[in-house]
C-alpha cells in the first residue's frame, strides 16, 4: 500500500472539508462536504474496505447531501450573514487537532504497517451480518424506522 496515493487523497479531502467549514454560501459548503466524503470513501477503498466506501457514497452523497440541499431550499429566505467569525471555536479546533496529533505521534504502537490480510468480500460481510450481527442489524433497522417516522412527524404541518 503506497503512501503517496493516500497523502494526495487526504490533502484533497481535507481541503474540501476545510472549504465546507469556512465557505460563506450554504450550497457551496454542501457540495464541498460531498466532495470531502468522496475523499473519505476513496481512503476506504485504499484501505481495502470497498463495500463500506460504496455504502458511504450511497448513503452520504445519495441521501444525506440531497437531504441537506432540500433543507437549504426549504429554508431559503433565511440568508442571514454568517460573517462574524467565532475565533473561540477555531482556537478550540486547532487545540484539539494539536493534542490528537501529539498523542498519535507519541504512541509507538500505532507506527505499524498494514499486515497482509485476506481481501474482504461482500460474502463475508453478509455472512457476518446474518449470523453474529443479526441482533444489532435488527436494532439498527428499528432505529432507522423510528428516526424516519419521527422526522416525518416533526416536519408535518401543524393542524390549527
Amino acid at each position: 500500500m503506497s503512501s503517496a496515493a493516500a497523502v494526495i487523497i487526504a490533502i484533497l479531502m481535507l481541503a474540501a472539508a476545510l472549504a465546507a467549514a469556512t465557505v460563506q454560501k450554504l450550497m457551496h459548503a454542501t457540495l464541498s462536504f460531498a466532495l470531502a466524503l468522496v475523499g473519505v470513501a476513496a481512503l476506504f477503498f485504499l484501505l481495502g474496505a470497498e463495500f463500506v466506501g460504496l455504502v458511504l457514497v450511497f448513503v452520504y452523497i445519495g441521501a444525506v447531501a440531497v437531504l441537506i440541499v432540500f433543507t437549504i431550499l426549504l429554508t431559503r429566505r433565511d440568508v442571514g450573514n454568517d460573517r462574524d467569525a467565532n475565533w473561540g471555536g477555531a482556537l478550540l479546533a486547532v487545540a484539539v487537532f494539536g493534542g490528537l496529533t501529539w498523542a498519535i505521534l507519541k504512541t509507538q504502537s500505532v507506527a505499524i504497517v498494514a499486515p497482509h490480510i485476506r481481501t474482504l468480500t461482500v460474502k463475508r460481510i453478509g455472512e457476518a451480518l446474518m449470523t453474529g450481527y443479526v441482533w444489532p442489524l435488527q436494532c439498527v433497522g428499528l432505529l432507522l424506522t423510528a428516526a424516519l417516522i419521527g422526522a416525518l412527524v416533526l416536519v408535518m404541518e401543524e393542524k390549527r
Partner: protein
Amino acid sequence: MTLTLQVVLVVSAALFSTGLLAALSRRHAIFILIGIEMMLAAANLNFIAFWRFSPQSQPPVGVMIAIFSIAISAAEAAVGLALVIAVYRHYGTTNVDHLDQLKG
C-alpha cells in the same frame, strides 16, 4: 514508503478538527449539522483504519461497526434536518444565536 497507521490517524484527526471547527464557529444550524457529519465520518475512518492495521479477525469487526455507524449517522442527519425545518417554521430563522428563549 509504505502507509503507516499514524498517517491515517493524523488525517482522521484533521478531519475531526475541521468538523469541530464547522460545528463550533458557525451560526447556521445546517452548517453545524455538516460539521457533526464530518466528525462522524472521521470516526468511521478510524474504525476502518484500526481494522485494516490489526491482525485478521473473523468476522471483520471494524467494518461491521463502521456500517452500523453509517446507518446511525444517516438517521441522525434525517432527524436533525427535520428539526431544522421545524425550528425554521416556528421561529422563521435557522440562526442558532436567535434561539435563546430558554435563556435565563
